[in-house]
């Protein structure tokens, strides 16, 4: 079978779901962030795959680049915040950070 667009998309879909699963189920904040990275990478696979099969559309690549840049920035901020949480709570279990509710 010829490898086509759909194959990549399926990989992306699985990766996306895995990422979400990680976000939902992991306690550790950094694990949640890792899940998030999977999600973003899934999106990137889409971009690149669509770009490739949409007539080598460079826009997809640009988009992927921006996603990577922003992921980096976001990761930096998120980690800083997680560190701050660690300072305040002495742990980084997201499900235990639930004082604000209701």
């Amino acid at each position, binding site marked *: 079978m010829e490898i086509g667009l759909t194959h990549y998309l399926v990989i992306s879909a699985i990766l996306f779901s895995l990422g979400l699963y990680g976000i*939902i189920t992991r306690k550790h904040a950094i694990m949640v962030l890792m899940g998030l990275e999977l999600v973003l990478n899934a999106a990137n696979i889409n971009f690149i795959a669509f770009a490739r099969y949409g007539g080598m559309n460079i826009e997809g690549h640009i988009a992927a680049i921006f996603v990577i840049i922003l992921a980096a920035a976001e990761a930096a901020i998120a980690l800083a915040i997680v560190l701050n949480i660690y300072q305040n709570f002495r742990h980084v279990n*997201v*499900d235990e950070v639930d004082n604000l509710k209701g």
Partner: protein
Amino acid sequence: MTQDLVLPLSLLILLIPLLSFLINIFFGNKLGRISGVVGTTILGIDLGLAIAVAFTKLSSFGEIHVIQNRFEWFSLGSQKIIVGIGIDNIAAIMLIVVTLISFLVHLFSTVYMEGDRRYPKFYAYLGLFTFSMLGIVIANNFLFMYVFWELVGISSYLLIGFWYEKNSASNAGKKAFITNRIGDLGFFIGIMILFFTYGSFMFEDVFAGISSGVMPFSNPTMLTVAGICIFMGAMGKSAQFPLHVWLPDAMEGPTPVSALIHAATMVAAGVYLVAKVFAMFTADALTFIAVIGTITAFISATIALTQVDFKKVLAYSTVSQLGFMIMSLGVGGYTNGFFHLVTHAWFKAALFLAAGSVIHAMHHAMHHMHDHHTDPQDINNMGGLRKTMPWTYRTFLFVTLALSGIPLTSGFLSKDGILAGTMAYANLTGGWHWIIPILAFTAAGMTAFYMFRLTIVAFHGEHKTEIAKHTKENKLPIVLPLVILAFMSLWIFYSPNPIDASKGWFHRMIVQPKSAVPAAYQWSFLLTEEAAPAVHQTGEAAGSTEVKAENPHEVTAAGHTTGHYLNKFQEETHHFHYLAMLLSLLIAGSGIALAFAIYQYKVISADKLETRFKFLHTFSLNKWYFDELYQSTVIAGTLVVSKSLSWFDNYVVDGLVNLSSYVTRGFGYVVGIFDNYVIDGAVNLAANFTGFCGSKLRKLQTGQIQSYVVFVLLGILILLYFFI
């Protein structure tokens, strides 16, 4: 006096008592004792004017049906509310009745109410009452009638509850007012039907409309209904079965009030109303009226037999006599019915004032003896008053005779006419209608019996208590009214012939009005011989200030032997005149005789009778077995009926009234609960449900970020599949 003056003077007569009311209510406290004098004086002036007006009307303008005016009270653009005042012959007579009795009661009260804390207020209320009552008298339209009807009700309420510290008094006032309102509702519905149909409140317009054949809702039955509705007003005010229950309770009011309102005037208003609008009643409505009147007359007569409270006896007697009047009007005896109203007013007022006199004396005696527990109104505490209170006794005796229908009294004339009328009616209509004269005669007999029982027990014999022994005759202001009223009960005032009133001025002046009801819905025997023209005349004259009715004299002149009477009924009444007279004399006589036998001469022991009735087998051992048995079947039988009817009245009729009041209040309670829990509950439920939803939705906000993510993803999925 010219005709133009009649109405302004009538208006003055109407307003003068209001002045009394205003003076006494606003300045009463300053006036103090003088307020009685002021009130009496004002009423005296009023009486003078009333006499002048009435004489003018009757003597100079007797042939003019009604002197009246009409003016716009207020308007709603095209729809004008026209009202007016009018004096016809019955109004003229009523003016005198009301003002004279009111004047006498004012006078009487100066002594009787002496020392009451709210003496000025009493006079104020009397003034208000007189004003309202006069308003009813001179109204020539339903609206004014209703207006003053209500005002009479409220002043009656105030007067019955005058001693409001007593719970029974304020309860009685309330009961009277509310019971009256039930009748008033009917009255009001009747008015609405008529206004709706004929577009006017004026009697003449309504009658003209009816005689032109226009029917409410285009249905002749509705005219009957309207008539009965109007009559319901009369049932309330005139204490007709089953709305009569308030009247005995109303005796809680001061006795002069009972004399004025609950004997002579206000309770007669119902009769007056029926007389005023007599022309609009259909045959069915009249039958209804007659039946109600008969039932009332009979039932209350039987009840009066056993009462021991002085005023209660008189109260039931009043109800009974009102029944007579209503009955008379119902059978078509217009003139006699109204005649009885007038004669009854005098002697019943006299009876009540005499009762007042007795009670006043008893009170004084009790006061003298420092006794505060004995019931001063219980006839068994009296006895022998004949000696201590001679004037009271004499007048009382005389008016008792009048009430019993003994010749030479006015009561004889009027009652005899009524009884003859019932017989004529039964004869003309036949069938079960014969029950009406039978019951009427029985009631008449009982009237004589219980009145004499009262007289004998209270006045004759020995003093039954020490108190009775210490009673003294009252002062002049109390005695004088009694004498005047007793005097008024002489036959001579109404007819030169002591056994036939039909030749008197009264019967000449008070002529049965022509029925406005089309012939198809009216008793044929009530229709006058000549028909249409007079009606048209009325219709044409609708705008003018006065209406000429058909003149009886002209008819007499034009007609021949039978034409002497206006209609078949009167002719028939005349036929029965002597038979009825004979019968009634017989029955009244035996009633009196029985009373004397039992209470005066103790030929028959009342106590024993009662005991034996209760324990029949001990009766059988008695040596006067046959004798007594014979006697007791009549008397005890009557007693049984009386007792049971009394019971019936107390527990069933009154009970029904009370029950309906409980039911109403209970319903009010249920509605209250319903309102609190269902309607308001629904509102609160909506609010609580909203809050509940909020509190549940709030649970979604767990505080855990991951659950939020789950919700977001779920949300997207649900939205996706929802909108697909």
